[in-house]
């Protein structure tokens, strides 16, 4: 096993609101290895974004609060950095791609200026010519045609896909070793999604930045990721490499997610949803947070929070008391993925 680039232990984030304490992320631990793409999937509000925003110190405090945990990145705990150190880290060693390229670019500044800013923030003494050259190279890298012309254009002159390419270019400006992509294609058309993911994959392969890809689209995970974490109500419920999770899921929630997807190759009259609705993060059910919706649930689940434990020797983990009962379960994707 290589040394992990980022190692998160017991990360717990809360938001103190007027209605009560929102347990957005609860005791999350995972490792990210150099050069890999780690997918984090889950429904809205499952803590996917918050768990990564916390790393960059981008959670508004208050109301947010990082209650406990550590995030070791190259030997430093990201959660204990001072403000100045955090700023130096952001955009240089850890970069982020946001969900909506329509709003993540400043409408009154040219694309070239904004990309240049990303470099100049960290290298203020860099010559303007050199910065410009680098920006044009970056735009070429992400497949923006006419980079020289595009350099002087404003965001409104870019299409959605082109803007997201520009955002990817911006995140790559200082060759980060960790890239966090927070639902990078959610705001785009399906056809454009494919192109942007292709760009992301290419850029990732060339720069070898370890990547955390946050999404709720299992298709993207299957396409892009090496390993995947499944989150539910602030907890990691299952983790492992993509093949294993898609073929032999060992957590009822993951199974529910897979079953709820339509299958392209067959006519299906009805989709099979997960019963019930996600719990309120203010008053989580006792025990396993998934038990009210779970087909395996029984008394123990109502009382005891299942820990995330290995279910095989290859790093596949599941947080279910009865995961053994799922041995031998094969998802409807087992053939498709293989």
């Amino acid at each position: 096993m290589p040394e992990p680039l980022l190692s998160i232990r017991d990360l717990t984030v809360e938001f103190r609101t007027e209605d009560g304490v929102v347990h957005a992320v609860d005791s999350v631990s995972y490792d990210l290895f150099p050069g890999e793409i780690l997918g984090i999937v889950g429904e809205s509000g499952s803590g996917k974004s918050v768990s990564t925003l916390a790393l960059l110190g981008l959670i508004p405090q208050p109301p947010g609060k990082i209650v406990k945990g550590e995030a070791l990145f190259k030997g430093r705990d990201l959660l204990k950095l001072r403000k100045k150190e955090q700023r130096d880290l952001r955009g240089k060693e850890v970069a982020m791609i946001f969900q909506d390229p329509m709003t993540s670019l400043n409408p009154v500044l040219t694309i070239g200026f904004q990309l240049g800013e990303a470099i100049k923030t960290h290298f203020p003494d860099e010559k303007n010519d050199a910065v410009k050259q680098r920006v044009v190279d970056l735009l070429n890298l992400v497949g923006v045609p006419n980079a020289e012309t595009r350099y002087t254009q404003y965001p409104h002159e870019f299409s959605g896909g082109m803007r997201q390419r520009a955002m990817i270019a911006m995140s790559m400006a200082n060759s980060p070793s960790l890239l966090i992509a927070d639902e990078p294609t959610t705001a785009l058309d399906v056809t454009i999604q494919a192109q942007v993911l292709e760009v992301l994959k290419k850029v990732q392969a060339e720069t070898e930045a370890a990547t955390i890809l946050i999404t709720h689209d299992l298709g993207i995970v299957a396409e892009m990721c090496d390993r995947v974490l499944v989150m539910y109500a602030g907890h990691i419920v299952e983790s492992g490499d993509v093949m294993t999770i898609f073929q032999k899921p060992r957590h009822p929630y993951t199974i529910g997610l897979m079953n709820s997807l339509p299958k392209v190759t067959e006519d299906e009259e009805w989709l099979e949803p997960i019963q019930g609705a996600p719990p309120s993060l203010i008053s989580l059910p006792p025990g396993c947070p998934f038990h009210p919706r779970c087909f395996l649930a029984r008394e123990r689940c109502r009382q005891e929070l299942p820990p995330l434990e290995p279910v095989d020797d290859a790093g596949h983990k599941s947080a279910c008391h009865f995961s053994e009962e799922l041995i031998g379960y094969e998802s409807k994707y087992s053939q498709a993925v293989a």
Partner: protein
Amino acid sequence: MTEPTVTPPVGPPIPAGDPSVVPSPAGVDVTVAAGLELKIRSQWSYARNRFLRHRLAVLALFLLIGIFLVGAFANYIAPYSYSAIDFNNLLIGPTTRAQHYFGTDELGRDYFSRVIWGIRTSEEVGIFVAVVSSIIGLVVGAIAGYYRGWLDNVLMRVTDLVLTLPALAILLVLEALFGGASQWRTSLILAGFFWTGLARIVRGIFLSLREKEYVEAAKASGAGDMRIMFRHILPNTMGPVIVNGTLAVAAAILVEAALSFLGFGIKPPTPSLGVLVADGETNPQAWWITVFPGLTIVLIVLCVNFVGDGLRDALDPTQRRVRA
């Protein structure tokens, strides 16, 4: 596409890559192949086009530039110095004789020249007040809106205080205490009253823009507070700032004229337009002494306001109206 030989300034070299690997939308490549370049139109060129459609504003702008140039080159244009005395022509009406186009006063000073010198003083005051008050308003508004919390409270209460003070009365007192004689001191005192409106506008814009995703994106790329405030958010406020600054020029010229007329602003012999109007008081029968400087003030203020209106329409597309 660039060759991979280019060495980037920072970080490892970026592989230029095989462009064919990256899928690009078909349409763009077709346009490029056909030799059609994308026409670059910046926000400013859109704004300029909108401004140029506003004929009255364009006309006013040219007139204003003309008047200000006359003021700026007063020493070349004015036939006489503002204090030169012509004993042969005391208190005569407008005439072409000896170039006394606007007449003279009882000391024989040429009013055409004095108005030109007065324009210079007034435009200096107006521009200085506009620039200084805009800077104060920008900084106060930016800090209050960006940091919020107690800082916002303190700054905005101070702003409210300045706003609620009866400006003219306070100005009279301040002028009586510290002002007078010095044009720059008068200007500074005026600037101290003129920044409040802009501060509130800028604060409002900052309050809404600080929550924008591109600000979060800037934060995520490591930008500090100052960089975010002044490089990312500030350009978004330029529209209102320019409009406000323009209108402040007119307001400052008017208030300065009023102060000087009352004898509290700029003191003679420096000719500001307000001082010149006031001179008419002592010679009620010599209408030209009051009328020409007065008309000049009206003309300048009208022009500035038309330009300001035109700029507002040009820079704030959300307020676009159809003009007659």
